[in-house]
């Protein structure tokens, strides 16, 4: 019986818990028993990005304490996985014991689609959608983790799906965490362009793997094009509704 420890980031916990639920359902369908440590809080990304390294370090150590004994950690958020893999060793570089633990955890944490395709070796899991589907390449997932084929294959192998490519698929949607608030006038032009590409693609559904991007793109769609939907890959695979 495979077991995977879930890291559910704050955005999902608070605003999009259905992504977490769908993750649980999908893992169970694949014969994986999801485990959720209630002591988990945050990967520390907000503090890191704002320059508060001491505070981010505290979050990192807490994360390592919570997840340190797990053999596999899965998260429906690529940016959080990137935080752990890329920034934890950097934050803890001056504390050898913590650094070693961080490097261990780095090896065992996966973004959801990466886990399903690369670790479980599964591409077809009985998902279905009748219509054209397109995919947005989130920055931390594509450039940070090198994950791109995996979610696309999962989408393409779903029953009834016609996969269409998204123009400028790898262009940033303009979320950037705090950026969306502090430089709102730039952020909104970026998400407008991203949504314009979605409309241009002719797809019936936009799928993505990053909750932050989903809040951003989904939030814009909800206000301006409520008939167009965006869905997290977990919900897409589980066949359950989402934002947009």
């Amino acid at each position, binding site marked *: 019986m495979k077991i995977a420890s879930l890291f559910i980031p704050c955005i999902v916990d608070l605003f999009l*818990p259905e992504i977490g639920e769908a993750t649980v359902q999908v893992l169970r369908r694949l014969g994986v028993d999801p485990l959720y440590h209630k002591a988990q809080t945050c990967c520390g990304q907000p*503090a890191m990005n704002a320059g508060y390294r001491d505070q981010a370090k505290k979050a990192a150590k*807490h994360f390592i304490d919570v997840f340190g*004994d797990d053999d596999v950690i899965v998260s429906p958020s690529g940016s959080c996985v990137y935080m752990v893999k890329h920034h934890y060793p950097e934050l803890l570089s001056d504390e050898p014991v913590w650094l070693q633990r961080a490097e261990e955890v780095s090896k065992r944490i996966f973004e959801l689609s990466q886990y399903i395709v690369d670790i479980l070796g599964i591409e077809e899991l009985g998902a279905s959608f009748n219509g054209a589907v397109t995919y947005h390449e989130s920055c931390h997932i594509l450039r940070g983790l090198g994950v791109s084929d995996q979610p696309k294959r999962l989408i393409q192998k779903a029953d009834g799906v016609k996969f269409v490519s998204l123009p400028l698929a790898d262009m940033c949607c303009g979320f950037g965490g705090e950026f969306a608030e502090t430089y709102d006038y730039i952020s909104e*032009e970026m998400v407008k362009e991203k949504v314009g590409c979605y409309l241009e693609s002719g797809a019936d559904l936009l799928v993505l793997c990053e909750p932050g991007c989903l*809040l951003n793109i989904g939030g814009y769609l909800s*206000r301006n094009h409520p008939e167009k939907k965006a869905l997290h890959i977990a919900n897409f695979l589980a066949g359950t509704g989402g934002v947009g």
Partner: protein
Amino acid sequence: MEIRTTLFNEIAEKEIRNPYARAFLKAMPAAIAARRKTVMGSFPDPDAAQACGQAIRAEVVAWLPELLEEFEKNALARGAKILWARDAGEANEMVLAIAKERNVTYVTKGKSMVTEEIGLNDALAESGIEPFETDLGEFIAQQLKRPPFHIVGPAINVPVEEVCDLFMEKAGMEKPTTDPVELGYAARLFLRDKFHHVALGVTGVNMAVAETGTIINLENEGNIRFNKSSPRTQVSIMSLEKVVPTMEDAMHLTRLLSRNCTGQAISAYVSMDSGPKKPGEIDGPEELFIIIVDNGRSEIYADSVAREALRCIRCGGCLNICPVYAKIGGYPYGWAYSGPMGQVLTPLLLGLDRTQDLYRACTLCGSCREVCPAGVDHPSMFLYYRSKDVEEDRGLRGKKRPWKESRFFDLWSRAVTHSALWNLGFRLARPLVNRYSHSGVITRMGGYFEGWFRTRNLPAIAKETFHERWKRLRRETAPGGQNGRKGKP
């Protein structure tokens, strides 16, 4: 050059609504990025080629003083005169001294970002020596008194009608036209006359080759070649980091620079000077001065993270790919260097306190890092500067963060290590946030979050967070699952 880095938002908000700027920005960067991809394909292994460029630049940073000494030695042996300038003031004084001693009344200049950095044009003009920018885009920008819009096209956003008016007023053009080609030829005639009689030509330097003491310039127009061929005196100005180890390295970087800058395999002209002209040669400079400018770089060098900024070869690849630059263009960056590379370098040269927006107006998307042939990790640099603000670092002139923000992250860090506190915080926040919601959607909120809601909605905080749902989810049908077991692959 006026420093307007504190006006980032004001300028950006204006530019983002400028139809000419937006039209250009929509088309050109994407076109160049696509061409870049194709032309990088001329390498059997483009990733290896890029990695090689990055390795060369890593060596340059690591061995900077030794390479500079080697360059100087070899350039002197070729008959060049090498001058060192600690700052902009010293550099400008040197150029002025050289010009005045030779009774120069005007100079012609090739495009050079470091000369903008040191404000050479202003220094010359103030001393009664007229500087003529001769790169067409720089010429237009200079005459309009505007900063460069883009590394490759400094004035590419200027409407043709404005260029026409300008040329009729300042470039001796007689008949009005809005045809870009005719306008270009009008500028050509005007500047050609300057080249014909010029006594002192000023250029930048793309690469200074240590192995041979050679300076190399890349261009498409030919104005730099004129500055190296027509006058009796040539002054070439370089910042420290322009040095490269060998001619072979220079060839490799030439390929990478051209591909990243304009999507060309190579620029139309590459010119290489090893000292002034030799006896018997009928053109070329009798004297070649090479001014090596520090202007804060040797101080940056002491910081092991900041010094990575010195890898940059000014190819502009990052500008061409940046999604933020694609919305706001070059002006908001407020100084000689724009786009992601400007965001990396300007804060180090001017101080973090006056350049706050430069490293904060970024989503950390990493596109710049991905294309950089020199191996600059822009997002890491920005995170580093942000942390230096929090630390109020004196060397980099970090600026103290707002009290509310510091307090927030202190509380945050207490909660993040105590999940009971963390979850309590959410439970307390939920009714406060959700009082703005109807039917599970928030369409408006004041204060800090106001900007989001101008064009977007937000889901309300869930009635049951995932954390709260887990108890129920755990109990639902799971294939043979048990509680408390550790996650195994």
